[in-house]
């Protein structure tokens, strides 16, 4: 009996997340019922649409890459206590920077273009995250509002460039020309945009997860989020750690953008991200910022949203129901944590 209680305590976070997800699936079932569709049928279509055959699987994986990177970007920031809401703008800047490299230096060999493109994308996005970070940490500005404003700025600016000086010829408005072949990540299949960039993403994700879970900075970040005052008392350089959290968060958003340009579309276009980072935000919050949990959640989302297309076809339930379900999961998780903290506090009235 005590053995069970101990196990529950130790894994309370994971259990809370899984429980919330299960509850949200039930809520989803309720929504399906409202549409007159049997929940299992709807979920079934989702699964078959996403994993039914190799083509579907490939499409699902290709969807997963930007989502996973976006989720990690948010997780890195939030885990360190920095509310980076500006990842979307950072992604756009990163995407455009990568495209810019290709469009401006078409003569360079691939060996230089590839790393340069990635570096430009990551660097631009990291800078765009650093600005609100330093302003909020050193000057006390509200990081949420700042990042939101910078979001819109970045999106409009890159859109302006893409429809103005860098507008592509022979292509509908809102996109640049294609980047040189030398800097493209090869597509792995004919039916989707899954490309070799996935390996870069995998390596990056693995490294970041390692850092977050097993290193001293990872520990410091976690403490900064759990109790900043305690971190300061204990000797952690809170400002330095949190700036790095922002930088890395931006970097991952930039990587996502770069891979979208260099791997998926081979050009920059307006609206290149249909809100990947917003989804990433929900997923990161759902798993309490755990990097591996985030990857699992990204996979789950990719399955659900990829399969939702077939589901919408077969049952008329719109694909947006996926966001609703996952949003509900986040609400359950956050309510769960709030309640459990209150309960813990009640046990000791000091």
């Amino acid at each position, binding site marked *: 009996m005590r053995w069970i209680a101990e196990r529950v305590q130790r894994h309370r976070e994971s259990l809370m997340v899984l429980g919330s997800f299960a509850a949200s699936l039930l809520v989803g079932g309720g929504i399906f019922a409202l549409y007159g569709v049997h929940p299992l049928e709807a979920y079934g279509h989702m699964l078959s649409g996403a994993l039914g055959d190799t083509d579907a699987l490939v499409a699902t994986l290709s969807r997963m890459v930007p989502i996973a990177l976006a989720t990690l970007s948010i997780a890195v920031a939030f885990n360190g206590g920095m509310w980076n809401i500006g990842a979307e703008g950072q992604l756009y800047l990163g995407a455009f920077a990568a495209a810019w490299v290709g469009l401006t230096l078409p003569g360079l060999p691939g060996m230089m273009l590839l790393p340069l493109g990635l570096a430009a994308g990551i660097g631009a996005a990291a800078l765009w995250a650093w600005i609100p970070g330093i302003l909020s940490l050193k000057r006390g500005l509200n990081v949420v509002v700042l990042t939101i404003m910078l979001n819109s700025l970045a999106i409009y600016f890159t859109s302006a460039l893409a429809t103005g000086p860098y507008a592509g010829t022979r292509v509908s408005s809102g996109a640049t020309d294609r980047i040189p072949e030398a800097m493209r990540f090869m597509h792995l299949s004919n039916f989707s945009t899954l490309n070799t960039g996935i390996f870069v993403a995998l390596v990056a994700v693995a490294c970041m997860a390692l850092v977050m879970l097993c290193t001293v900075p990872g520990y410091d970040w976690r*403490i900064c989020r759990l109790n900043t005052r305690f971190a300061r*008392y204990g*000797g952690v350089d809170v400002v330095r750690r949190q700036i790095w959290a922002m930088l890395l968060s931006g970097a991952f958003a930039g990587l996502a953008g770069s891979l979208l340009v260099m791997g998926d579309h081979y050009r920059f276009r307006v609206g290149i991200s249909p809100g990947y980072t917003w989804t990433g935000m929900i997923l990161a919050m759902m798993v309490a910022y755990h990097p591996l949990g985030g990857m699992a959640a990204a996979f789950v989302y990719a399955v659900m949203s990829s399969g939702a297309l077939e589901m919408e076809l077969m049952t008329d339930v719109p694909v947006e129901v996926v966001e609703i379900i996952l949003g509900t999961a986040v609400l359950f998780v956050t309510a769960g944590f709030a309640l459990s903290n209150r309960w813990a506090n009640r046990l000791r009235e000091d």
Partner: protein
Amino acid sequence: MTYLRMERVTKRFGSFVAVKDVSLEIAPGTIHAVVGENGAGKSTLMKCLYGMHAPEKGAFYLADRQLLIRSPRDAMKYGIGMVHQHFMLVPSASVAENVVLGDEPRRGWGFDGSRASREIRELSRKFGLEVEPDMPVHALPVGLQQRVEILKLLYRKASILIFDEPTAVLSPGEVDSLFAILRGFRKEGKTVIFIAHNLEEVLAISDTLSVLRQGELIDTVPRGEVTPKELAQMMVGREIALPVLEEASSGDGKTLLSLNNLSVRDDWGGWAVQDLSLDLQEGEIFGIAGVTGNGQSELEEALWGLRQIEKGSLLLDGEPLQSANPRERRKKGMAYIPEDRLKTGLAPLGDLEDNLLMGYQYAPDFSRRGFLRRGAVRSFAARILQRYGVAAASPRVQSGTLSGGNMQRLVMGRELEQNPKVLMVSQPTRGVDVGGISAIHDHLLRLRSQGRGILLISSSLEEILALSDRVGVMVKGRFVAVLSRREISKERIGALMLQGRGESAEGGTSHAMDR
């Protein structure tokens, strides 16, 4: 007329019993003081009466009618009001607005500001609490702000007024004004309950005194029938057996930590610590005694690097330390157990391992090239839990779920394992059960016998007396007296507790004796 009675009141916080089976009677129209050391339970008892805490056992009676009190508003209905130590005022609102908040006079939809002003002016005149009703509260000095709090109670027609340590924040002149006001209340037939631990003031104003010690009522005596010395003894305990502290083994008097003319600002631009000096020696426990709020927190923060030292210098082993950050101070051999476990000493939402690692994560034992050595962390945590007797189901429980005593053991274990040369420890046994207290004291004494230096900041005189080789009494940011253990005798204890209210003096000993 009011006749107030408390029967068998008991209040527990977790496993810590703050008030034990206290029965008390208070006569109407008197000034009744409830005295005791910090942590004796006086505030808690009165907060039960005022509806801020729900006692586990016990009942309150007014003129033999049982009171049903579940909130301060209920207490107010019976005419019971409380003026707290920390004022609850809205800074930018006026005096009148603050007083009437919650029972505002209205004219139709709107707030009848002029009526509020008028009524407050009348009230203040009637009771001699002169204060300008339209002034914003933040512009008032502390003494007048307290009057606003008092007016709140009078506005709601309180007939029993409880004052929780009212003189702690007042200057001597303001104290005299307050006492005049209290005497005025007595003349009007109101009942005043006065919580304090400063005997001098209590003896000057009260008709009756009740002494609490460690949650229990020791006795209730009329003013005329008790001497200050007897009172002091009742507060501290019949046998003030000072444990004989063995001479520190490696005591060649080497100075470990040296504070020279330290001055530190508080959060509002004033000086929290002024010109403070002390030399902490090897194998010594230096106790800093005094009521909280006299600059101790700011001093601690400054010594640990969380607050700037504006003037003066800090030396550890001869090396200047005042610009070092907490991490560097740890490296140099200093450790700090803060008074607020939950806010500063721990991350309550994190598990025990996470909390125990703090301060060690950069050490080669626990991290290699940036990677945490999980195994080392795990065994270290297990070792501390065991060695310091932290009762927890597993190292992965949330640290916030532990009891106060266990949390303190956790923090203590973490800091002591650093093997510091100098340990600064603040309010170590607040909210800790008796068994925990003696364990903590044992640890401190062990450290002392190993030749370390300990700076003990505590508002519990009993604790200070039990452990310190030397005692510095801190009032308003300065040392009013610095005594060695030999000078602390039974007689001196009484004198110490009658210590002055803010007049700083060099060689404070004679000053303290004059009273």
